[in-house]
């Protein structure tokens, strides 16, 4: 019924992309939960461990791409301006949520400034590429 599984490097590379997608989704979910109720996730699981797993996966994707002499698909990802603004909006919400207790006007100003810094960093990095 089941085929004899003999994974080669190409399959491993594809699976690593799936793993990266799963880990990123899980990391985002945990980050969201932690931001809503601090300590709920970090009390049980180190978010640093999740970040470490993501970095290891990215490193492995890079390694296998070089081994197979193919262009690393991750380097080909181009983010559109629309996607940048969606990411910045999520970034803004996270920052705003974390500083909400100070004062919501002050929180909004801090979050806006932090988002602007993020936007500038993104443009500088893009220009440097």
């Amino acid at each position, binding site marked *: 019924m089941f085929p004899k599984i003999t994974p080669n490097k190409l399959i491993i590379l594809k699976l690593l*992309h799936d793993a990266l997608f799963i880990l990123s989704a899980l990391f985002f979910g945990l980050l969201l939960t932690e931001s809503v109720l601090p300590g709920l996730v970090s009390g*049980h699981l180190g978010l640093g461990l999740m970040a470490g797993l993501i970095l290891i996966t990215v490193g492995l994707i890079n390694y296998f791409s070089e081994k197979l002499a193919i262009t690393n*698909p991750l380097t080909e990802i181009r983010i559109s301006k629309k996607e940048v603004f969606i990411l910045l909006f999520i970034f803004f919400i996270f920052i705003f949520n974390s500083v909400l207790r100070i004062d919501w006007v002050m929180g909004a100003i801090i979050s806006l400034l932090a988002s602007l810094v993020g936007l500038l960093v993104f443009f500088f990095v893009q220009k440097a590429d």
Partner: protein
Amino acid sequence: MRLDLTPRIILDKSQRQTYFWLRVLLYLLAFAVFFYLAFRLAFPIRTFSFSFLNPNSSKNTITDLHDFRGDFINLGNFKAGEDNYFFVSWAGPFSQAAAEFSLNKRSDLADLGTINIRKGYKAFFYPEGEAPGFKEGSLLKSNSRYFIISENKLHEFENLKLVESLGFNPQNFWTVLPEELSVNISGAKITAAESYPDGTLFKILDNFYLKKDSELQKFSSQAAFLSHYPLSWAIEKDDNFLKANVAGEEVIGFADGSLIAYGDAVSIVSGKNIYPIDNFTTFEALGYSWDDLIPAGGDEVSLYEKQKLINLSSPHPSGTIFYATDIDKYYMIHDGQKKLLKAKVIADSWLKKSPILVEEKNLKTQGQCVLSQKSWLFKTYLCQADISSLQNLKGKDYEFKFQSQQNFRANNLTVSLRKDYSFANLNKNLREIFASIKKNYVSQDNAQ
């Protein structure tokens, strides 16, 4: 819609089949991890640890490890036949507890000893000390006889006329039973109206004073006075009285155990010290009531020496009064001892805020387990106890009392607490999570 994250990597037919099954496996694994994490969030296991190799590490979460003499269990050396104690603290009920000792070398013994577990407050587990009497300055009457507590002794006024001539209102004396009076030792009778005994309280203009060591010691504010005494006990005097008496330099602050609020901080007063409480959870877990907060000014707070933060594992400081609801008894904490206040009226003389509610069951109800070898391979001994009988008891501290059967040396100690896996607990945990989220977003003023 097919989700292919790498459309530019083309596989042949056999590779595609292999990739499909491995991908299915990967996603199933991801779902398993997701459900495991969700399960852990719904049924949390709280783990606490202590390393005897690194006893000063900030990662140590098991607290107050000591033997029956009160000495720290140095280097994890447990001695046969001796009682040893350690605590873990958490706000919330648990129904299962486990303690695990990692020994420095393998032992042949099947069992290491027995562990008894109690739940309550650390201070309520203190040994009992000598019962105190009425508070200094208390005005008492019994069978038409009038008394004042001066220098901790019971002094009787010679007659009602003398009481009135000194300016006391006999109506404001507390009626007590004759046997309750015997808690304070008797002092000399007050026979003359020339001078007031120590312990007398005065209101001069808008300030309050206590006569102590023949001098008038001023209270820092009316709120400070009210944290000690009822307003009716103070005799009203004018400025001339103050000029005719020696004013002491000492300023009397809030009563021990008072909760003062200054800025965003809430602190507990104990002697010359204040202990700021680290967060809302600790405040509530200690059994305090928000209604007992006394707003204090910066000048009043500066009278005290600020001590380190009170956290979830801290005991209640001196001056705290516990009320055991099931046996109707009051206890006062003082210098590491729990002192029985023999009557409600005695407790009332010390207590001007809500007591910390406890039960005698806190002292008597226990979970128990035997510390047995986990497996022949490892140097670890595990003890698992059903503590569902402690679940509904008040308190945040779990006391573990361990008596070893032989001398041994432990490197590490781990304790874990968890709830039973049931729909009732799931429902309760989810409610707690939602309540915490609400508390996180709704300000405390609105929440109350």
